[in-house]
C-alpha cells in the first residue's frame, strides 16, 4: 500500500512510537510569537530548563500586538526578545522587521516540502501549502518543541479534496475554502490532514495555496497540505538555488513529498468548482457560509483587509483593482494591514498603498491586531466587520461584534458599497 504525503513525512521524522498510533516526530522548525511563547519560556526558566534544542531551527516574531500597546504587551515582547538574544536565535523579527507569522516565515524561506513544523498558533497549518506537515500546538507542546525538538502526534488520517474545473473570474482561494468548510462543517476534518489536489490547486499561486491551507483548522484539520510542484520551486528558488543545480532538479527532489496513487484515504471528496460563486459567512462559525449574492446589502461598519489568510501582495493587488479611483462609503471604516514589511514595501512601490489611501483606508503596520480583537481595529458592541480573516467567532474582533469572512475582492467592493456586495471582478451568473 502506498503512503500519503503526511504519512511519508511522519515516517521520515519518527523518533519514538511510545504507544499505539502515537508518533513522536523530530521537528525541522519551531516557530514562535509573543503571545504563546513567553509563557513557555517562563515555565522552562522556572523548571531550570532554560535551553533550546537548536537556535537555527527556532524562528521568532512579534506580530499579534505590535508595537506594544501597553505594559503587559511590552513585557511579553521583552521576554521573547531577551530569550532570543540569550539563546542566539538569529531569526528574531522585532518591531520594524516584523510581520504576520504565517506570511513572514514563508517569505523568509523557512519552509520546505517534507518539513515538520509546529508553532503555538492554530493557523500554522498555512505552511502545509509547501508540502510540509505544519500544525498548531499549545504552549506545552511548544515548550517541549523548544527544549527537545520533538512533538507527539497521532498517526495522520487524511481526507483528500480533489478540486476540479476552473474557478470563474472573480472567485478566489478564500471562496473555495469557505465553500469546503461549509460542506464538511467545523468538525469535519478534526484529527485529519486535509490534502488539497486537482487542477484548481495546480493553477493556484503559492499565496492562494496558503489561503487554502490557512483555514484547514477552521474545519478542525491538523494541517492543510498541497503537493509541491514547480510553483513551489519558483517561490522558494532564491532560497534553494545553491542546493540544487536547476529548478528541475529541485522539483524532482521535492516530489518525494507527494502522495502515492494507491495511498489510503479516510475519504476522498471531489468538487467541481467551475460554477462556484464568491462566498461569505453569516453566523458565528466558519461553516455558516452563503453565496455573497444571498447576503447582498448586509450593512457593515468596518472593512478589514489583512491577516495570515489574506494580507499578502496578491490579495492587496486584487483589492486595489476594485478600489482604484473609488472612495469607500462614508459610513465605513476601512483598515488595511499588509502582512509583512516586504508586502508593505512592494505595495508602496506598485502604488497600491496610494490607492487604498485615496479610497479612504487607514493603513496600519503589519500585525495580527484586528483579526482577534487584540489591537488596531477592535469592534464595539453590535458592530459588524467585513473581513478577509479566518474566524468569525462571536466577539472575535471585540466583545459583541460580528465578523463576516470573505475574499479581498468582496471586502473591497463591500467597502465601497458600505454593505456586503459582490465584486465587479466576479463575472458569474
Amino acid at each position, binding site marked *: 500500500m502506498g503512503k500519503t504525503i503526511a504519512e511519508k513525512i511522519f515516517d521520515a521524522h519518527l*523518533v*519514538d512510537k*511510545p*504507544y*499505539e*498510533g*502515537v508518533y*513522536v516526530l523530530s521537528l525541522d522548525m519551531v516557530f514562535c510569537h509573543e*503571545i*504563546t511563547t*513567553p*509563557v513557555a519560556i*517562563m*515555565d522552562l526558566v522556572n*523548571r531550570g*530548563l532554560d535551553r533550546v534544542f537548536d537556535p537555527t531551527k527556532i524562528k521568532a516574531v512579534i506580530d*499579534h*500586538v505590535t508595537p506594544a500597546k*501597553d505594559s*503587559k*504587551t511590552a*513585557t*511579553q515582547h521583552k*521576554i521573547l526578545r531577551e530569550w532570543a538574544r540569550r539563546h542566539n536565535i538569529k531569526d528574531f523579527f522585532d518591531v520594524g522587521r516584523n510581520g504576520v507569522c504565517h506570511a513572514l516565515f514563508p517569505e523568509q524561506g523557512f519552509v520546505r516540502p517534507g518539513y515538520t513544523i509546529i*508553532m*503555538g*498558533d*492554530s493557523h*500554522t497549518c498555512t505552511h502545509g501549502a509547501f508540502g510540509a506537515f505544519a*500544525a*498548531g*500546538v*499549545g*504552549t*506545552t*507542546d511548544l*515548550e*517541549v518543541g523548544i*527544549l*527537545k525538538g*520533538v512533538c*507527539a502526534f497521532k498517526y495522520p488520517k487524511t481526507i483528500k479534496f480533489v478540486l476540479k474545473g476552473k474557478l470563474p473570474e472573480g472567485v478566489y482561494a478564500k471562496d473555495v475554502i469557505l465553500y469546503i468548510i461549509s460542506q464538511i462543517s*467545523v*468538525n469535519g476534518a*478534526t*484529527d485529519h490532514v486535509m490534502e488539497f489536489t486537482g487542477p484548481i490547486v495546480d493553477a493556484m499561486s503559492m499565496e492562494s495555496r496558503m489561503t487554502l491551507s490557512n483555514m484547514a*483548522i477552521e474545519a*478542525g484539520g*491538523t494541517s492543510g497540505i498541497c503537493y509541491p510542484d514547480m510553483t513551489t520551486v519558483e517561490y522558494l528558488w532564491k532560497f534553494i538555488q545553491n542546493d540544487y543545480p536547476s529548478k528541475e532538479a529541485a522539483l524532482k527532489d521535492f516530489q518525494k513529498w507527494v502522495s502515492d496513487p494507491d495511498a489510503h484515504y479516510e475519504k476522498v471528496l471531489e468538487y467541481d468548482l467551475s460554477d462556484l460563486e464568491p462566498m461569505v459567512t453569516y453566523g*458565528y*462559525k466558519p461553516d455558516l457560509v452563503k453565496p455573497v449574492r444571498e447576503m447582498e446589502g448586509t450593512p457593515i461598519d468596518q472593512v478589514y483587509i489583512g491577516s495570515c489568510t489574506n494580507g499578502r501582495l496578491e490579495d492587496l493587488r486584487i483589492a486595489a483593482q476594485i478600489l482604484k479611483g473609488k472612495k469607500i462609503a462614508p459610513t465605513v471604516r476601512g483598515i488595511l494591514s499588509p502582512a509583512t514589511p516586504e508586502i508593505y514595501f512592494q505595495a508602496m512601490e506598485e502604488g497600491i498603498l496610494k490607492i487604498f489611501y485615496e479610497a479612504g483606508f487607514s493603513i496600519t503596520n503589519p500585525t495580527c491586531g484586528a483579526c*482577534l*480583537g*487584540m489591537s488596531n481595529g477592535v469592534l464595539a458592541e453590535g458592530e459588524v466587520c467585513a473581513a478577509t480573516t479566518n*474566524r468569525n*467567532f*462571536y*466577539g*472575535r474582533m471585540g*466583545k459583541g461584534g460580528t465578523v463576516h469572512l470573505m475574499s479581498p475582492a468582496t471586502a473591497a467592493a463591500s467597502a465601497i458599497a458600505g454593505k456586503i456586495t459582490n465584486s465587479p471582478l466576479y463575472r458569474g451568473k
Partner: protein
Amino acid sequence: MRQFDGEVLFLDRSDINTDEIIPAKYLTEITKEALKPYCLEDLKLEGFDPKRDLAGKSVIVTRANFGCGSSREHAPWALEVNGIYTVIAENFARIFRQNMFNGGMLAIELPKETIDEIFREFKGKKTYAKISIDPAEIILEAEGKKKTYSYTLGGFEKALIEAGGWVGYAEKHY
C-alpha cells in the same frame, strides 16, 4: 495524581470555541491565575452566566467539538484555575484535547448516544461526578439517581496524566 471528581456544569452546545472559553484580549496576561475571572465570559449559551454558574464546578459535560479554534493553552488554563480539571464531550478539537492532557487534565470522549443520555438524565440537576482513571469510569449521581459510564483512555494520555503533563514526560524520555 490529580483529583478529577466534583460537581458537573452542563454546557448544552456543540462547537464551543476557544474565544468563548477565554477571549484573546486576555492573552496579554502572563500568569494562569490572572485568567480566572474571565473564563467562559463570551460563551453564547442562553441562560448561562459564568459568574453564577462556574462556582464550585469541577467537571464540564458538553456536546461535540469542544475547544475548536485557537491553539491558546490559555483556554484549558482558564478552566484549570477555576477548578475544572475534566471535560466530557462527544469529541474535542485536536489542539485543545492535547493541551488538556499535556497539562495533566482529563478530556473524556463518549459516544453521541451516551452524551445524549447524560444530558437527558442529569441536565438541570445538581450532579456529582466521580471519575477514576483505573478503571476508566465515570459515576454520575443526582437526586438519588446513579449511573456508571466507562470510557477509553489511550496509553499515551494515561501516561501524560500520570507524569503530570508532557514536559515531565518528555524530559524523562527524550
